[in-house]
């Protein structure tokens, strides 16, 4: 199976460890992954902010880059949701792009989907002796219907203790440019999310999207009483000993 890695712009610049973790888990499971270097960004921020025309070159670029692979995997629920949910709509009216999207979009998976649904693995042989609480991100939850796939993977991790998060399914308040355009509301939502994380007493807050984690982590680090560190679950799955 030809698996291509899509490392989103946020991951590429800010969280290369998450990408490395995906590579290491897949290689540990005996798969080779390809990183097509022509890839850039999925265009989500542009499209969601209303800049459709500006997003289209990125949509085309994504489709051209990843056409021909059996599976494309990205460690970001919201970017995968962009490809699977929004690309078909954005491509409407351009027959060539429509067929490209029809080919690529259904084969683009969030990491947990690839592991559980495509590769049929739930135990990746990881060890992470820490307490963690899991925040299901909105796009993973409601657009991709990830359900408890990431949780299933986490439950199989050696030494890991999972703590339930109150009102877990509520948005953390990030929402891309929403955090800037309605900063006050976003901060109010964040405060509640951080409070819920603190209440678990967990060492780590885990999610399937580094942008949400940036938001939650940025809020937690402002709160004197907060100790939880943000981490992408791929990095937990890559860990085979005690983490730093």
């Amino acid at each position, binding site marked *: 199976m030809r698996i291509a890695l899509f*490392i989103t*712009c946020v991951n*590429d*610049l*800010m969280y*290369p*460890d998450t*990408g*490395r973790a995906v590579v290491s888990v897949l290689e540990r499971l005996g798969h080779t992954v390809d*990183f097509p*270097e*022509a*890839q*850039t*960004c999925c*265009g989500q921020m*542009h*499209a*969601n*902010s*209303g*800049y*459709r025309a*500006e*997003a289209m*070159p*990125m949509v085309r670029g994504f489709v051209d880059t990843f056409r021909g692979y059996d599976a494309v995997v990205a460690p970001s629920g919201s970017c995968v949701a962009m490809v699977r949910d*929004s690309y078909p*709509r954005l491509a409407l009216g351009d027959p060539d792009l429509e067929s490209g999207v029809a080919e690529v979009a259904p084969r683009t998976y969030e990491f947990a989907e690839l592991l559980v649904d495509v590769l049929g693995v739930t135990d990746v042989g990881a060890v992470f002796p820490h307490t963690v609480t899991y925040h299901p991100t*909105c*796009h993973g*939850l*409601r657009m991709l219907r990830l359900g408890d796939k990431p949780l299933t993977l986490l439950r199989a991790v050696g030494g890991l203790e999972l703590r339930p998060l109150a009102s877990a*399914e*509520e*948005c953390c*308040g*990030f*929402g*891309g440019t*929403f*955090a*800037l355009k*309605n*900063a*006050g*509301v*976003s*901060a*109010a*939502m*964040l*405060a509640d999310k951080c409070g819920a994380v603190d209440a678990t007493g967990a060492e780590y807050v885990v999610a399937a999207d580094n942008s949400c984690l*940036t*938001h939650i*982590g*940025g*809020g937690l*680090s*402002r709160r004197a009483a907060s100790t939880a560190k943000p981490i992408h679950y791929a990095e937990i799955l890559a860990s085979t000993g005690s983490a730093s």
Partner: protein
Amino acid sequence: MNGTGNIVALRPFPDAARLELNDQQLRTNLRRATHTIRDKRLRVVGEVDDWEALRRAGAAIKDDVLARLPELLERFEESATRAGAVVHWARDAAEACEIVTRLVTGTAAREVVKVKSMATQEIGLNEALEAAGIEATETDLAELIVQLADDTPSHILVPAIHYNRSQIRDIFRSRMPGVTDGLTDDPPALAEAARRHLRAKFLSATVGISGANFAIAETGTLVVVESEGNGRMCLTLPETLISVVGIEKILPTFSELEVFLQLLPRSSTGERMNPYTSMWTGVTPGDGPRTTHIVLVDNGRTATLADEIGRQALRCIRCSACLNVCPVYERVGGHAYGSVYPGPIGAILSPQLTSSGANSTLPYASSLCGACFDACPVRINIPEVLVHLRQKGVDAKRGKPSAERAAFVSLSWIMRDRRRYAAALRAARRGSAPLRGRGRLRRLPWPASAWTDSRDVPLPPKQTFREWWAKR
């Protein structure tokens, strides 16, 4: 033609929201109330095996109605007229108010009783009647509270959701005639005080004003769904009944009604069935009102219908499920939306009905978390419409200079090309290198300060992913 009336926000959403965010009591009240209804809704929706099929059926029926609205409206007018009702058409809020005021004045009545009607809120009817010297009394408990407090509704279904019990007691004590300082905040005591106050109004008013949840084209029947029984009184006691109805409320026949009588109560109050469903068709000699008028209101609906993606907002049955699950609504309440339609549905409906001014900030009043779409009984893809409206706004301003556009355009130019993109990542990584010792940033200049006002920013690590990949 653009809609007018109480759907036009006076100030941009972020400004209005900022004021509401300061009100800690409001947030506590909203959180408690929305979470209670939310949980109830989840429970009763969970009981229905074919809920998804019902939602799809509801959406399909509404889409069919919207696709042949002119024809169905004409059929409704014919049937209603045949049954003895007088049908009027209003293009906007001003026209609708003018018609209703003329009808009331024509009866020589000086007071009217009202049963909850979003449409009359939308057109600003109470204000218009007051200007004509007519006193209108809201008879839904929550509407009455809001009216007594000289406030505006904050929720579609529970207009007084922003008050708690003791606040309501205080409003009754100071504003309701005949209420003494001895009134407690015990719900039965509050309900009893309201009941006594309203009973007198029901018996003396000769004109009733209602809205309608549904209008059946085949028979000319109007349907009102409610839980307090005040509807029954308003719809049967007065001599004259005037119903103000948005043109999208049409259903072809009675058989479609069945789907909505399942979807609506479960989605709105979390009840399996609402306590009172009233239906009436024109006039019935010897029973109920002797004269019935129906005012069909457009007020921007036809314009909304013209937008292929945006028109799904007209499927809305005003259940308020989307408000109760919306994290933004929960923090700011209904007033921040500046329209009688708050929350997620308001964010897509108000700007479409009016297409003007401060309403253009409403499509950004969402983190696109999608909870509203999941809750909506007629499957309105609210996030899709929000993004669509943002895009329309952006496109309408093409050619005018804007810092935001310039940023998005140059970002797009960089990100569409791998070399420029890789170089930009490298530059960002290098540029932040001198700061790396600090780990995180606490202050950034405007516009990023909107972020750092309440959140730290991490710094890029030493190597981008693609640099690592190239070396491995």
